[in-house]
């Protein structure tokens, strides 16, 4: 059993910063990002050889898993943040780093699926068709979710007071 997981360990080392960043953009919160990445990577690692056989791009595969997990409300109970250093662990009380960024705040307030679609479209640069396939929904749904999200974002950015809550 051990060697294939050594390979997985190297993969984790190399890709963790990027995956944490993706998790943060996706969930809007460093704790949730850390928890999501950890949860998904544990599952991926437990099936690492078969995942390597199944896909030539494990990072993309993991991002899809994270997006789907995020949508299906992967978080049931909070646990200690183990894989990323969050501001509290560095010893100060965190202010929201995006306090003065209405667009980021507005994205954070989108419903999970709209948020995932927006992140996949504009952060990952996937096509509507690729998003549809990844999330198991129709391309039409992707289109409508994206356009609904963009229109919500526009409204909130134009009137940021609304999103203060």
């Amino acid at each position, binding site marked *: 059993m051990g060697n294939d997981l050594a390979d997985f360990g190297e993969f984790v080392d190399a890709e963790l910063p990027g995956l944490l960043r993706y998790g943060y953009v996706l969930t809007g919160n460093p704790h949730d990002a850390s928890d999501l990445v950890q949860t998904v990577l544990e599952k991926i690692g437990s099936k690492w050889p078969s995942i390597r056989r199944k896909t030539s791009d494990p990072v993309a595969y993991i991002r899809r898993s994270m997006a789907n997990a995020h949508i299906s409300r992967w978080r*049931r109970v909070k646990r200690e943040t183990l894989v990323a250093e969050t501001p509290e662990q560095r010893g100060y009380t965190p202010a929201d780093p995006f306090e003065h960024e209405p667009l980021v705040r507005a994205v954070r307030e989108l419903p999970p699926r709209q948020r995932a679609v927006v*992140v996949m479209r504009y952060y990952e640069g996937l096509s509507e068709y690729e998003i549809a396939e990844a999330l198991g929904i129709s391309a039409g749904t992707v289109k409508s979710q994206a356009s609904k999200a963009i229109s919500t974002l526009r409204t909130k950015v134009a009137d940021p007071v609304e999103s203060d809550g």
Partner: protein
Amino acid sequence: MNQQDDTDFTDGLRASFSDDRFALVPTASARETIVAAARTRRRRREVAYVTGGSLAVASVLLGGFLLVSPQQPEGGTTLAEDTPSMPRTAEDEAEARMESGPEPRAVPDNATAQRHMTEARAGAAARWIQIGPDGYRSLRLGMSYDEIRATGMLAAQDDPPPKNCARYRLSGADVAVRHILVSERVGLAAVVANKASTPEGVTIGSTRAELERTYDAAEADDPKNYLIPTGKGGHYLFRVDGDRVSELSLVANNQDCGLP
């Protein structure tokens, strides 16, 4: 708004996603934590597979539950460690200690106690009638009153249908369920157990520790009520009195009858 506006807006969105403030720094032990947990998870799966029978079934059900959830606590009863078909070497023990991270982990002295607990739970699941993740016997969450009546399971076939919400008893032979709640709007809203088990083996009388370990629910917001989503349109509600589960219900997520 024209196409140029759209492009500008989405460009702004792209720019905001590449903001440096989204960078998170992995902890020094991140790799170890993840690899160790992946290994534990794989072992557990392999052992569940070779053990076969009811344990395997329980694991599959649990797997459905935990589709996107964190792993079970490391200190908990893992099938991999306590199953006799998986002999452990000294090397395994050392590795297990390394994997344990910040959580205290069972050492061999505890293994027997843990095995007993596992057997007790598996035994309870087999002996007691189960309330599944979406219903009980022929009853399914969300069934209308008429559908429920058609199963023939109600004690009184001529009770009136619910106005808002009503409580019905099942026929006298059914000792597993105390009563059900039916909502006029959403149908079968809750199944309240009398003497029944979840598929994972938690019953009335299980300890709080067993409950928390089974469902990875160590940090319930409310120490008296544990709500565990079943992933099938409902959740289990465990009421804990002192150190023991005192009530067990399967409750529809969209129910409007209040907690049973």
